[in-house]
């Protein structure tokens, strides 16, 4: 369960395509495949160079994520009462946290491939849920994405590993710090966590 959670977290983002209008499922497939291939092909990453993975995530993956929407969704109600300065700092720390999270999970990628699940009819033309299965030997791992339309392409604003939506998980974990010391407490906590991860890996 933990292993699959980690692997799927790595694939919870995608690369941007600058082409004619893409369907959301094509978008997800291309991205997932490109990310896995990039990780498999890079010897340094396979050897455990986490700094390199973070760069990969920052340059190739983040552009396809609606970071703002993810932060707001992960923080919930307290976002409204935060000052613009706090919101800015929170978004920055969240971004680093997301990159570190994703990079850590990418270290798990070995020989997986991605298969699309049948696309469910969306409730709106601009938002859709795309489901994939990450397959290696044994049980496939469910990895779903919530996409919103962004021009000719799509952006991810949430992802789901084995049924758990990332923003739900974040909201649950952030709640303690938020109720304890407000937005500043959460910013401090994320900042501390980010330093801790960077420190232990480099």
């Amino acid at each position, binding site marked *: 369960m933990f292993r699959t959670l980690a692997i799927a977290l790595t694939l919870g983002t995608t690369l941007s395509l600058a082409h004619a209008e893409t369907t959301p499922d094509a978008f997800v497939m291309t991205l997932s495949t490109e990310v896995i291939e990039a990780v498999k092909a890079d010897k340094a990453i396979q050897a455990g160079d986490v700094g390199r993975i973070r760069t990969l995530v920052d340059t190739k993956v983040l552009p396809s994520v609606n970071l703002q929407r993810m932060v707001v969704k992960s923080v919930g109600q307290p976002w409204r009462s935060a000052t613009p300065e706090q919101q800015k700092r929170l978004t920055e720390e969240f971004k680093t946290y997301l990159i*570190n999270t994703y990079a850590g999970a990418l270290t798990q990628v070995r020989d997986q491939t991605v298969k699309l699940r049948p696309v469910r009819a969306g409730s709106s033309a601009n938002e859709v849920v795309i489901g994939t299965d990450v397959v290696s030997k*044994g049980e496939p791992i469910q990895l779903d994405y919530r996409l919103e339309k962004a021009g000719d392409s799509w952006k991810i604003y949430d992802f789901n590993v084995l049924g758990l939506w990332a923003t739900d998980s974040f909201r649950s974990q952030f709640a303690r710090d938020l109720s304890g010391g407000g937005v500043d407490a959460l910013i401090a906590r994320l900042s501390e966590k980010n330093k801790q991860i960077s420190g232990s890996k480099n």
Partner: protein
Amino acid sequence: MMSRFRLLLAVWALLALGGCATAPGGNPKDPFEGFNRSVFSFNETVDNAVLKPVATGYQKVVPQIVRTSVDNFFANLGDAWSAVNLVLQAKPVPALEMGMRFVFNSTLGLGGLFDIAGDAGMERRNEDFGQTLGRWGVGSGPYLVLPILGPSTVRDTAALAADFQAAPAAWFQERRDQVGVTALQVISTRARLLSATRTIDDIALDKYLLIRDGFLVRRRNQVYDGNPPDEPEPPEEGSENPPPK
């Protein structure tokens, strides 16, 4: 051994019921959060003191190919129990597939050491008695963290008695072999999960919550075989649109 285990379960159930009520702001799925967090802390201590070091040593000393064979061996025994549960869940086709998986791997795979069926593309479905109960409508009940065994629910804890009957230890007669086999199963599983748990340690702001939420969602998925009924979504903060129904 079984009656002692049942007694242990009963004691824990009593402790759980007598444990903390839902704290304000607590998750309704986890009314025993106070109690669960204590057990979780205990498990973490045991893990850090014993399981992780032994599993790390096992991983360093034992060659990958041997470790894979060990994992395959235990997974194969698990497939037989999954097949039984699929029958109990009235899912004959998957039951047959898992049965075939077990037969192939036991024979062609030299007693389960090689996952021949997996190489041939047969997917594995893990089924246990808790999922069987869930399939027939038994609700999961509150989240429960068991000493050493980790995350569970009230229903799945009750189902453990049945799962233990089919545990790898049950396939051996001698007491000494049973203990040895169980120890090997625990260590090999822990070793397999080492890098994943390291990732969890890095990611989690609150490890207890991450594991709980992940486990409950995963469990629900397993009971419904990947297609759980949608739960109502809380309105998204900051968005103008109400969540899709």
